[in-house]
């Protein structure tokens, strides 16, 4: 491991912290993540960058509980949650978004947010009529406003444009009342103006959440992130403040050589 800064530095801070240690994942003979240490704490945006196939999405899946790791542990605020499954981790406050937009097509925008809001309710709700709770509806409207969603919330999600869909994705993640957000390329495919709006949103969210952000847009990464981790071939090449990463020779050689940074 040749990381620039210790991961422990930020963990000592206040607020919820998600930590992965020695995370390993094989797909057959393919070693996708190799003994990765990574952490994110409330109050920071930790950007995860790296070339395609570096293992970023796999790492996110391991942290979120979607993929069981072949080795390593995941801790939330010091508690071992390695064996907690994906829904369980969401209930504990670790929530992920997806690279590909995937709201529930059978529902409207508001109903999608309501679905995420009602997910932690106890029981299975055989006798609970869905979508009519006034407070929930108001909260859903607030969340949509918070992410800058401007269209009619009663629009079926299949009719949304890409930018609005990405906003809905963030609103749905926030609806799970998480403390840690794992965001997989939330700005993929957005127009420049939309990227700006989304960046401003994440900047505001930073105070209340710990955000692990997989992102390709280097301008966004370097303007937004408090910390950057560079992943390549399943290994961490460097971790550090944006300025350090910019200056890092290995990172430039590996990842930034074609970029204008």
């Amino acid at each position, binding site marked *: 491991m040749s990381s620039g800064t210790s991961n422990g530095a930020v963990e000592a801070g206040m607020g919820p912290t998600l930590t992965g240690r020695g995370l390993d994942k094989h797909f057959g003979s393919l070693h996708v993540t190799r003994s990765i240490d990574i952490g994110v704490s409330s109050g920071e945006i930790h950007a995860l960058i790296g070339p395609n196939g570096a293992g970023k999405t796999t790492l996110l899946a391991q942290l*979120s509980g*979607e993929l069981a790791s072949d080795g390593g542990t995941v801790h939330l605020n010091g508690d071992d949650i390695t064996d907690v*499954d*994906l*829904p369980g981790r*969401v*209930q504990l406050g670790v*929530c*992920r978004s*997806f690279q590909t937009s*995937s*709201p*529930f*097509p*059978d*529902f*409207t925008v*508001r*109903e999608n947010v309501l*679905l*995420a809001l*009602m*997910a*932690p*309710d106890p029981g*299975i*709700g*055989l*006798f*609970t*009529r*869905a*979508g*009519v709770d*006034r407070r929930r509806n108001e909260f859903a409207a607030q969340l949509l406003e918070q992410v800058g969603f401007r269209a*009619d919330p*009663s*629009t*079926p999600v*299949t*009719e949304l444009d890409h930018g609005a869909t990405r906003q809905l994705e963030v609103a*749905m993640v926030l*609806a*799970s009342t998480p403390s840690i957000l794992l965001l997989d390329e939330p700005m993929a495919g957005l127009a420049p103006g939309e990227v700006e709006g989304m960046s401003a949103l994440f900047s505001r969210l930073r105070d209340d959440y710990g955000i692990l952000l997989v992102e390709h847009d280097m301008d966004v990464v370097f303007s937004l992130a408090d910390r950057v981790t560079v992943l390549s071939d399943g290994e961490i090449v460097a971790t550090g403040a944006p300025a350090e990463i910019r200056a890092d020779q290995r990172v430039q050689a590996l990842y930034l050589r074609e970029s204008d940074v």
Partner: protein
Amino acid sequence: MRTVDPDTSSARAHGVRRASTRPLILTAAVLALVGLSPPIADSLGMGYLQGSLTRVVILGMAAVALDFIVGYGGLISLGHALFVGLGSYTAGILIYNLSQGWGPGADQALVVWPLAAGVGALMGWGLGALALRTRGVYFIMVTLAFNQMMFFLLNSLEAYGGDDGVRLPSRNRLGPLSLDDDVVFFYVCFALLVLVVVGFNLLIRSRFGWVIRGARDNDRRMRAIGVRTRRYQLIAFVLAAAVAALAGALAVNESQFLSPGISHWTVSGELLVMVLVGGLGSLIGGVIGAGVLLVLEELAIDFTSDWQFYVGVGLILVLLVARRGVAGVILGRHRNV
């Protein structure tokens, strides 16, 4: 609680497929037509259709339950007849035992029918827990395999006629009602059908229903917002199994003949065809499909012994032009939730 309904109003403005009251009107209309069918048939001098009408109600009930898990839950089961057969044998064995004076027997509908549904639910729980470890085409194959296991198990019950089955001396008894009267029996079945249709319509609008509908389209995403979807799907499967078993208990009463044929996998296939013809994901489509198929069968059988061929051709045509079946044609963009 519900002061305004901006959902539907803006949906109309957008002209998109959205929930509206039209599916419920169609549901009520179909149920009314089915409910009035005995006097109508009678006045047309087709009273001989009474048995077929009762079968439409009973198979429609099983098909509505199947549509619940296939159309709303995305769980394509080819094992639905397993539960119909199980309910049929639960009721049939109890009636037969009583008439023979050996073993446990019962003929009270209020005991036998809930028991049949309960046995169906229990079996649905066990088999569903196993089958739900798979998805997609594997789920279809596993439910099909379970279906055939049940078929051969019922075939081997020599005490109840093996593959020949046995004739039952009477129907269940239900208080002062004489179920041996075909019209009375029809209306008892019809009342239960109405309960089942209303029940499932409430369910798809409940939190439970939202979860299984969401999981149908994106199971992974549903888990990523914190829902353990398999529990919900298992309960949906159990509910469908219980209703199928109840339909089985009614079916054996209708025919007064206990036979393993009702649990053959082709019956599962026919129920699925009813759902598809009537309209997948509409609930009432199950009843429409049962009606269309049984009436077609009744009519076609007079003209040709190859009626199944023509029904097959018709089915292909229906699904080519109207993928959402009869209900889809009537409702257009409007859907039952």
